[in-house]
């Protein structure tokens, strides 16, 4: 039918134009896109190559691997766009609701739009790698081609079904808040296999086989198995798979129809208490107390802060877990010290882009800050608020690590080392915050921490901060790990010195380029 072809061409073109429009006039975005392209091509080639290598494995292992890989693709397609919602205008059906499009046209169009792009292509190529890796004989290849296409279609419609049915909830504030934190859960899920493999839970082959024997009956598992089978059973499996695709597509069209006419769920705003808290009792009245109070409230209320704090804690716990697994039993006072120092680093890294979360609201500080000293106080407030939350956490890490490794005498030293790296991190972060500022998107997703086009800045900033903190903390951490525990006694003072000097430098640089910092953190996301 020509109208279907027309719709496909129209929406495919629209998507390409949106992609191109995003790149216009901005060098950073062009570079970012070039980087994405290089990565995508690399991943596609590597993925295809790895999938074809599966052929070298024994037949049953090969089939198991493809079953698991296909299922991972399907699940990723369902989760990833959800977390990255808002990066792609064609994904939001509400933008199209005013056009006189029939539901079928809309469905074909949105399907085309979601199939057009770099990542769908990569998926298709890597999925096709299973043909090279698994298919045997003419039947296997023929069924394989069908299976690959069906698996690809299933990934797309399943991902569309999930985003569409949740789209009205996702447009509300609360829905987005929940999702922001849910993004972390996804990261954990992705980390889980890694952990399991690291901790030698059992024979990886048996593990693979166990997983595959269950996943084999999922739609994506059917696709993988059909390629390996290449006979009548495979054909039957493909029929089932095709029916699943059609059913999911039908559900998606229904959800689309509903999403277009259902208004956003309204959010009832709750009220917050009026208490000004402990801060005012201990700090002199003034800008410093104002910033500390505000930052503490933000740490509590802003989902992006909850996410970064939660991830700092989780990453530290993961590190502790893997360090604990590697050694053979308790390994002396070095471990708690290194671990607490690491925790201090993880927490301090949050302030490597101190103004990023304030983002577009930062003008309010910018019109009030009239001197280097003002900016320095602003930074000090952020550091103090962060430290108020960090100190008890570091204490907990130090105590837990000290007891766990059977060296309670190291607890005090570990805490000192943690505070030291925290201070060093604040100092370094003050400088990176004003030299390489970038916007933290409203909707934090698990894959980029920066506004479109600022991915490079984000990487440069966090790498720079990480490197700086490691270098400047190395003296006391290395000395302590090699036995000179007493060095840690100086760590907090060393950290404080680094914080003061770094903050001074940051304020000096930052005040001179306040408008530029403001512009960098106010990018549209």
């Amino acid at each position, binding site marked *: 039918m020509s109208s279907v072809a027309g719709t496909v061409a129209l929406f495919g073109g629209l998507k390409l134009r949106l992609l191109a429009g995003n790149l216009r006039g901005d060098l950073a975005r062009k570079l970012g896109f070039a980087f994405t392209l290089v990565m995508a091509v690399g991943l596609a080639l590597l993925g295809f190559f790895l999938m074809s290598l599966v052929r070298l494995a024994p037949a049953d292992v090969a089939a198991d691997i493809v079953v698991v890989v296909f299922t991972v693709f399907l699940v990723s397609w369902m989760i990833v766009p959800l977390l990255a919602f808002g990066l792609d205008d064609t994904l939001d059906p509400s933008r199209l609701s005013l056009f006189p499009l029939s539901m079928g046209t809309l469905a074909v169009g949105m399907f085309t739009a979601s199939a057009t792009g770099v990542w769908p292509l990569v998926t298709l190529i890597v999925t096709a790698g299973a043909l090279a890796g698994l298919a045997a004989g003419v039947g296997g290849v023929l069924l394989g081609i069908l299976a690959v296409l069906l698996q690809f279609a299933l990934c797309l419609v399943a991902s569309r079904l999930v985003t569409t049915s949740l789209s009205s909830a996702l447009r509300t504030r609360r829905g987005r808040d929940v999702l922001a934190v849910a993004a972390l859960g996804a990261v954990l899920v992705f980390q889980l296999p890694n952990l399991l493999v690291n901790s030698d839970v059992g024979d990886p082959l048996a593990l693979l086989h166990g997983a595959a024997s269950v996943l084999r009956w999922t739609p994506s598992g059917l696709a993988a198995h059909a390629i390996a089978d290449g006979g009548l059973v495979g054909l039957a499996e493909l029929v089932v798979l095709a029916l699943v695709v059609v059913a999911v597509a039908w559900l998606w069209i229904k959800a689309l129809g509903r999403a277009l006419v259902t208004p956003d769920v309204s959010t009832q705003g709750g009220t917050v208490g009026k208490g000004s808290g402990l801060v005012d009792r201990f700090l002199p009245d003034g800008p410093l107390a104002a910033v500390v109070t*505000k930052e503490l409230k933000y740490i509590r*209320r802003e989902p992006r802060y909850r996410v970064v704090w939660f991830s700092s804690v989780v990453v530290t716990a993961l590190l502790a877990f893997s360090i604990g697994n590697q050694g053979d039993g308790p390994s002396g006072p070095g471990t708690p010290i290194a671990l607490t120092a690491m925790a201090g680093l993880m927490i301090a890294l949050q302030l490597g882009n101190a103004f990023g979360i304030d983002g577009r609201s930062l*003008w309010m500080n910018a019109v*009030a800050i009239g001197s280097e000293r003002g900016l320095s106080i602003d930074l000090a407030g952020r550091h103090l608020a962060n430290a108020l939350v960090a100190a008890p956490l570091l204490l907990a890490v130090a105590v837990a690590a000290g007891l766990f490794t059977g060296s309670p005498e190291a607890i005090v030293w570990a805490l000192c080392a943690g505070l030291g790296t925290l201070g060093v991190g604040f100092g370094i972060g003050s400088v990176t915050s004003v030299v390489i500022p970038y916007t933290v998107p409203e909707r934090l997703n698990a894959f980029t921490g920066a506004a479109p086009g600022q991915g490079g800045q984000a990487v440069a900033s966090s790498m720079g901060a990480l490197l700086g903190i490691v270098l400047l903390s190395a003296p006391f951490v290395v000395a302590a790990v090699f036995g000179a525990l007493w060095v840690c006694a100086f760590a907090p003072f060393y950290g404080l010195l680094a914080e003061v000097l770094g903050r001074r430098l940051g304020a000096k640089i930052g005040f001179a380029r306040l408008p530029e910092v403001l512009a960098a953190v106010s990018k549209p996301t």
Partner: protein
Amino acid sequence: MTDAVRTTALTKRFGAQVAVAGVDLIVPAGSFAGLVGPNGAGKTTTLSMITGLLRPDGGQAEIDGLPVWRDTLEVKARIGVLPEGLRLFERLSGRELLIYNGRLRAIPKDEVERRATELLQVMDLAEAADKLVVDYSTGMRKKIGLAAALLHNPSVLFLDEPFEGVDPVSAQTLTEVLRRYTASGSTVIFSSHVMDLVERLCDWVSVMSRGQIVAQGPLAEVRAGRSLNQAFLDLVGRSPEQGDTGLTWLGSGEQR
């Protein structure tokens, strides 16, 4: 009488596009001034440069005779700003936002709390004072933004599109507060493209088009006997026959 705001040859370009091409804006102290112009005329860019939020490529800006980009401390203490786009600290309540703002400017806490309560009362926000700003409506955001800009009693107030998207009741509240504020000798400069409003409120008008000031002076002078709307259309230079050509298919409701 000194000028509250005076810029000379203020310029800003974004890439190849010149947003502001040498603006000489003058606003006498104590006036209620309107900065009008079509979309994209450079109003927001100009205001951002005068308030120290955007670095100009060239030219000078002075507030109460003080150069904005050199006497930063002094200038920032004197101005209040409500930028476009309602960008506020979303996760504070209205009251917390005002208190934060005041204390950031080193006003004692008790005094800030007193002023915040009064402002919330006047702005008709007392009931929503302890709700988070993220849940505020457009009108409420404009009002809390204006309250935040007024809190430290600035001598010059810059408002970018303060009435856009505001319901008539809130708009009335806003204008009452602003009238009272200028009556005491302070200066308000606001950008708008609603000519009726500017005509009703302002005693001084600056008209911008394509990055330049094309007319400015007391309202009556700029109007020169016409309605402000007509004067604006004449100044911005849209020839009447432009509207007559093309669009022959429009109207009568025939579907192709």
